[in-house]
């Protein structure tokens, strides 16, 4: 049975989610930051973390954006095979919701019309980055992030050999985080995409970030790899703000998919402590 759904119904929840996440962090992230502030031993990193916690309080109280870089909107729409969207095209609804949120929220418009020719601000924060995926079932799920570029600029990709070991994968990720140092506003959240083609691995590294910070990977070998990576990334000692401390990363999330016999793509999305995300289901 096909379920008909008016795409216009996406507008309000999407606009409201964008308005909320640039001002209020999800609870899992707030918990992780508060815990990091409590256990930090580096004196400068302690200052950074306690200021981040105060910043979260002020933003919520005064309804101000947490950070002046309110990001580029990233939208991942999962469309159930048994749903038929009706009415206004979904792409247009999503664009309207992004534009409305950035105008109403007094968020910074940070998108330029072309990476080179010409680099002029679109003044609406449009377009968002939009991914659509077909999934079984009759639900529509929309995941959204507002991605800051201090951290995005430190993301990276490595095409490893098919014979690479789990340790080689760990080292590739560690290398990317080590070179990023303090620039991506650590403590960061690290999304890792493994497999597929180069572009698929990059997308997986974003999708992985949508998971809850304190969840556990359903496959034990990946759950172990995530724990091991988190421990080794924190052992780097970069710390909050890059000033030296015990928490460099709040979490590591891995997503994987089948790949070619001849390769092993590894993509890493670095997200800052302002880990702004939401999931809407219709």
């Amino acid at each position, binding site marked *: 049975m096909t379920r008909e759904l008016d795409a216009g119904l996406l507008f309000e929840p999407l606009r409201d989610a964008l308005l909320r996440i640039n001002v209020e962090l999800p609870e899992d992230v707030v918990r992780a930051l508060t815990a990091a502030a409590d256990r930090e031993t*580096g004196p400068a990193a302690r200052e950074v973390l306690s*200021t981040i916690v105060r*910043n979260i309080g002020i933003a919520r109280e005064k309804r101000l*954006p947490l950070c002046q870089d309110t990001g580029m909107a990233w939208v991942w729409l999962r469309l159930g095979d048994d749903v038929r969207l009706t009415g206004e095209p979904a792409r247009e609804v999503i664009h309207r919701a992004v534009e409305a949120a950035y105008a109403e929220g007094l968020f910074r418009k940070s998108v330029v019309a072309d990476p080179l020719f010409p680099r002029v601000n679109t003044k609406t924060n449009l377009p968002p980055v939009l991914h659509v995926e077909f999934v079984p079932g009759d639900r529509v799920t929309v995941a959204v992030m507002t991605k800051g570029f201090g951290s995005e600029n430190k993301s990276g990709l490595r095409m490893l050999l098919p014979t690479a070991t789990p340790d080689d994968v760990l080292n590739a990720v560690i290398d990317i985080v080590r070179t990023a140092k*303090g620039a991506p506003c650590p403590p960061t959240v690290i999304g890792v995409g493994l497999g597929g083609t180069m572009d698929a691995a990059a997308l997986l590294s974003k999708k992985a970030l949508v998971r809850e910070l304190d969840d556990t990977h359903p496959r034990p070998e990946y759950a172990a790899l995530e724990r091991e990576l988190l421990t080794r990334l924190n052992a780097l000692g970069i710390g909050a703000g*890059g000033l030296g401390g015990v928490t460099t990363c709040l979490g590591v999330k891995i997503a994987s998919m089948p790949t070619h016999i001849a390769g092993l793509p590894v993509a890493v999305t670095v997200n800052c402590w302002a880990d702004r995300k939401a999931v809407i289901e219709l």
Partner: protein
Amino acid sequence: MTPISLPLTPETIEDLRAGEAVALSGELYVARDAAHARLIALLEAGQPLPFELRGAVVYYMGPTPTPPGAVIGACGPTTASRMDPFAPTLLAHGLAGMIGKGQRSAAVTEALVRHRGVYFYAYGGCGAFYASCVTSNRVVAFEDLGPEAIYRLVVRDFPVIVANDCHGGSAFYEPA
């Protein structure tokens, strides 16, 4: 937290040590990429700058729009390394301090020692928090650049950490 008043005096700069937490009060000049390119062009043409560089502290920042009735929107630091190509020239012409986030190039940290300047780390991403430290905000130059124009802010108890001092000290941790 040591209170520091702005503009900076040479004596104050000599006393600052990397890793120290300080609270700035006084005037800051907001300038980012495009404004820096213009300042350098003016210097190269031998023209006067729109504000007194001697003792001045520049803040690398691009705020969100100002809410009605407020002084400024969210106003945390942006990545300082983008201004690395311009900083040594400005320091040579009297700039005393810079505020941003992330590490600087060797050319910048060397210029800090040579010209007795300081680079402060501001808490990355803490835009809402810093808005509460700003008491006034007005455009002073390059208005046509819109949000990239040069703004003069007056701040009170604006907390930062001395990241690179004029003695070659650095507060940044170098991962092995």
